């Protein structure tokens, strides 16, 4: 390892700090690109997420310590080799894991190098292509035998490489609570024998749905969070990053593509979603020129490809199509409401939830007027949902029923959690006539 320290040039202070900045930027980039592969490969080799997580973290710490003289020729290989050795070291220390130690040695003797000076670990593995490791990792983290909250925290930690502190900040939970959730989930995986593999054909669709649900939850947590901050872009960005990885690993999965497109077109509107006063800006009032054209173009391209593919769309693909219609219009008045109505009918057919019906009613208001839409909304049992009250309030406002609208805004404000949305609702309420 001292090989990396040798030959450090004597440099001035400013040169050193520039080098350090360069190194830490490179390390951050490597952390993003290599972390999931490291954890995934180690988890398969050592049959333990706990060991995989610890060894991967230690490899990055070792890199900070040893790369001051410059990066090794193959940084990813160096990290893998180092993490692998750290994992074996831990097993050696840990007397309670004799069987795993023996198994690791068997793997080691089959060709995994433990030589730190060698940058290219021999990665000949008997079971499938290496990229499958990351898929296995996702499916393990989102196994239905784990609670949804545990799936979210595990996915962010193991696949996303976020620290416990970052996850806690993102989810507005205490670090202790997040750490405990992850520890318990790892313990359950080990004790219950949750396998580390890609589900079989019969279960695959259902298990992919679980992964997508986790990613969408993470995205929305970043896009419409409760609590102090209006937006938590790092969580949305993370969800997009993992979704891209999923699409790369399972290119034929339409729903994964649909979810990615949906996220991209939603993310594209972020710049115009909150006003300079920290108030939510509804779609109709957004500055469409501030939308991110590149993200929208990418989302549209995915949707067009999915439509050309011709298979029956699932809920994420339909929601992506709905977002494509919205982002296609250069002005709210150009919106193709009839197309939206058809898409919401299709969505309702496969997912007959009251929330979908609420969104469909908002489209109905544009096509058939607020009276028809209000009647639709009043049939829904969503009294606990702030958006139901907000939608009613808006229709009542448009109908000139100020007193009813004021009461409905009040109900929405009481139930809303996002501060920007609360500001918007309060301003609308204050602007009512009479």
């Amino acid at each position, binding site marked *: 390892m001292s090989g990396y320290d040798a030959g450090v040039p004597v440099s001035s202070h400013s040169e050193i700090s520039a080098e350090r900045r360069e190194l830490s930027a490179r390390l951050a980039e490597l952390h993003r690109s290599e972390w999931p592969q490291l954890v995934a490969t180690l988890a398969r080799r050592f049959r333990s997420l706990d060991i995989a997580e610890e060894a991967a973290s230690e490899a990055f710490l070792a890199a900070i310590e040893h790369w001051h003289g410059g990066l090794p020729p193959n940084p990813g290989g160096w990290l893998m080799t180092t993490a692998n050795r750290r994992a074996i070291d831990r097993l050696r220390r840990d007397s309670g894991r004799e069987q795993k130690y023996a198994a690791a040695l068997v793997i080691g003797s089959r060709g995994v190098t433990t030589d730190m000076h060698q940058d290219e670990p021999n990665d000949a593995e008997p079971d499938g292509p290496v990229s499958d490791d990351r898929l296995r990792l996702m499916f393990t983290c989102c*196994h239905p*035998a784990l609670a949804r909250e545990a799936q979210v925290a595990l996915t962010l930690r193991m696949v996303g490489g976020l620290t416990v502190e970052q996850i806690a900040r993102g989810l507005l939970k205490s670090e202790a609570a997040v750490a405990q959730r992850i520890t318990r989930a790892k313990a359950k995986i080990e*004790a*219950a*024998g*949750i*396998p580390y*593999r890609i*589900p*079989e054909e019969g*279960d695959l669709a259902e298990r992919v749905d679980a992964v997508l649900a986790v990613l969408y939850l993470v995205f929305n947590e970043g896009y419409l969070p409760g609590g102090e901050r209006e937006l938590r872009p790092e969580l949305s960005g993370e969800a997009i990053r993992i979704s891209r990885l999923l699409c790369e690993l399972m290119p034929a999965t339409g729903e994964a593509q649909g979810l990615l497109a949906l996220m991209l077109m939603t993310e594209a509107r972020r710049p115009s979603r909150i006003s300079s006063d920290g108030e939510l800006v509804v779609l109709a009032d957004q500055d469409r020129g501030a939308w991110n054209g590149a993200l929208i173009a990418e989302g549209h391209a995915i949707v067009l490809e999915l439509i050309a593919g011709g298979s029956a769309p699932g809920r994420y693909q339909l929601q992506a199509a709905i977002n494509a219609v919205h982002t296609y219009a250069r002005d709210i008045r150009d919106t193709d409401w009839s197309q939206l109505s058809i898409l919401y009918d299709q969505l309702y057919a496969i997912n007959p939830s009251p929330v979908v019906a609420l969104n469909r009613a908002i489209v109905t208001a544009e096509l058939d007027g607020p009276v028809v839409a209000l009647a639709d909304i009043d049939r829904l049992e969503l009294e606990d949902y702030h958006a139901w009250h907000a939608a009613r309030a808006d229709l009542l406002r448009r109908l000139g029923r100020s007193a009813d609208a004021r009461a409905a805004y009040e109900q929405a404000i009481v139930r809303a959690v996002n501060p920007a949305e609360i500001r918007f609702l309060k301003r609308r309420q204050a602007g009512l006539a009479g």
Partner: protein
Amino acid sequence: MSQYLIAVLNGPDTRSRPAAEMSEIIAAVDGVNAKAMDAGIFVFAGGLHEQSATTTVDPRSGKAEISDGPYLESKEYIGGFWIIEVADLDAALEFSREAALACREVLEVRPFMQEPPRGA
């Protein structure tokens, strides 16, 4: 290979099923058992008498005291169980889904702790 306990949770309605439904359930459960035996994953299975046949043995006073009836008072109780030996939880869940549909009861799947090697 790991062993899993699959506990069948009976409820208030379990014992009042009509005879025709009971015989359908028995036939379905027999089918599940036969399939598990063919697959080599069957270790043990059994149905239990009703809760009123329970006797409790309580050691907390220092001498094991015997009393009539169940210790835990609850509407749901274990009515029977399987023990299977399979590779992992997914295999255990695959069996359990079929078993749950066959016996029409909620099941709980729980891993046994790994035994240390015999003679060690």
